[in-house]
């Protein structure tokens, strides 16, 4: 079935099986920043933005997304770089596998919540698992990113 997606502002037409999930479609289209983890909507590493909202791409059928706007981390490059700088300063990076999905979720949170508290940040990030860091450095980095007006 032919599906027309808008990925990072670019129209992409692709023939997909009716049971294909967005994660597979995006990886077929070479958006390799979209990662596969648990493949059952629990770990968060496959998160992309669908019409601006964080969404688990492993559990969303591509056929349902005709003409919808999909954003991967490449689509928010400037903001992701800014967040990465704060992650670097806090030593919040290790293997990096969860970084693209984390950046997208933090970006969506910044748009949705005004001046979130640490508790609100933690609540928003539930389901974005990081097996390396223990989260504390990430939370500090995210707070700095949210204050960053540059």
């Amino acid at each position, binding site marked *: *079935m032919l599906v027309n997606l808008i990925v990072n502002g670019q129209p992409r037409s692709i023939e997909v*099986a*009716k*049971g294909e*999930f967005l994660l597979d479609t995006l990886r077929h289209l070479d958006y390799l920043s979209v990662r596969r983890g648990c493949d*059952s*909507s*629990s770990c*968060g590493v496959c*998160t992309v933005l*669908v019409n601006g*909202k*964080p*969404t*688990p791409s*492993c*559990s*969303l*059928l591509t*056929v*349902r997304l005709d003409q919808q706007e999909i954003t991967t981390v490449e689509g928010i490059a400037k903001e992701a770089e800014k967040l990465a700088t704060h992650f670097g300063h806090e030593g919040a990076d290790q293997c990096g596998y969860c970084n693209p999905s984390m950046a997208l*979720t933090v970006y*969506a*949170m910044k748009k949705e919540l005004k001046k979130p508290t640490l508790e609100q940040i933690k*609540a*928003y*990030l*539930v*389901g*974005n698992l990081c097996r390396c860091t223990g989260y504390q450095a990430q939370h500090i980095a995210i707070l700095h990113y949210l204050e960053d007006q540059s």
Partner: protein
Amino acid sequence: MDVLHYVLPNSLAEAYQLLHEDLNNHVIGGGVWMKNTLKSINTLIELKHLIGEKIEVTHEVIKIDANCPLRQLEIHPVIKDLYDGIISQSIEKIMGVSIRNVATIGGTVVGKYAFSDLLAALLAVDVTLVFFKQGRMELSKYLESHEKNRDILISIEIPIKKGTGYFHKVSTTHLDFAILNLAITQIDHQFRIVIGARPGIASCANQAMELINHAKEIDDTLINEVAECCVKELSFGSNFRGSEEYRMTLAKVYVARGLWEVIHHAS
């Protein structure tokens, strides 16, 4: 997962007919859980163009389209305040925001998931379901029915009344299902006590509710009797999340705590 056909019907009547053509034809809600439960689907029936995701508030009722994502319900200002916000509370600890952006209220209700936190809260506020063929039905009646649902859920109606509420989920982590969940309300001076994930599906403790609703005076002795009654009348069981005994102990404590909380909030 194999899907042979993906169809956007022109009307609900056409969708209903399609649904009844084959037991392996399914209506898709949010679709989050579908991958874990269905291996192959003949026809997947899409209704997003026929059933919206609006939340409409009138003086007496909040009408929610079946395709409304859980996150929209969770953050809706009226729902956040209604009955001490128990509906929002029951949603905010369901996995992460991304899942709640996709999972829908309709999918949750039709799925009759035994682990559901939201079903416990909805049952405690006595919502009404609106189906395409069967029309209006109380959620309690729908959950008690053992028949497999082959109707199309259009909307859910939450009554707006004066009342207080309590919700509590016991779970090991945010991402885990509940070991037990409880929702208690006092609406129009009537208590409703719901316990879910026992691990059976959310149910009202009807005898316990009768006991407290007919009591002349509410004191510690009565509250403990009501909590004891809940444990006797509802069935509890064991699974890898918790034992029957543990669940019964939790239920007694949280029923008593919840009842006092709704009473104090009402006064």
